[in-house]
């Protein structure tokens, strides 16, 4: 059982590593946010799950941290994406349409 918990934890950290790699490789701010947050969220949740299997007595606090991250991670990445667009962060050259920029005048 302990080995299973440790393996789940390891899988979580591997996702974190892949997310960081994506953060480095992606060409613009939006793609970086995508790589960073998704991998970081699942990575941390798996790590917490693994820790809960290794240390069953800690489940309540681990659950709280997990719930907190589950709500705040997408919020902060969304706020960051909005800030990126509003402050005019460049889109990667291979980007297709940008409906938000098209509609920007009507919105404000």
């Amino acid at each position: 059982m302990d080995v299973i918990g440790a393996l789940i934890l390891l899988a979580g950290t591997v996702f974190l590593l892949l997310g960081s790699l994506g953060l480095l490789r992606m060409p613009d701010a939006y793609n970086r946010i995508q790589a960073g947050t998704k991998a970081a969220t699942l990575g941390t949740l798996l790590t917490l799950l693994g820790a809960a299997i290794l240390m069953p007595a800690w489940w309540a606090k681990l659950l709280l941290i997990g719930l907190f991250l589950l709500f705040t991670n997408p919020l902060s990445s969304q706020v960051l994406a909005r800030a990126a667009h509003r402050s005019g962060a460049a889109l990667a050259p291979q980007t297709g349409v940008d409906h938000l920029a098209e509609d920007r005048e009507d919105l404000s």
Partner: protein
Amino acid sequence: MVEIILTLAAVCVGLAFLLALYRFVIGPQTVDRVIGFDVLTIISITGIVLAALLAQRVVYLDVALVYALLSFLGVIVVARYLEGGQ
């Protein structure tokens, strides 16, 4: 066995931290640095949980929780500032 796997996990966390730190340092724009910072803090939370496991001390989890709260607030404030600053 468990010790070995946990050590491997710690190595992954360390590498992830370095990669995110590199993005934080090179930018190129402020937004990219903030994204790097956001990911850095999430990786640190995983690091703290690992430290709690290795040291067998539950108190570290409280540290992780408060750290998560503060980093979330920090990112929101900086993002607001970026929007207003343009």
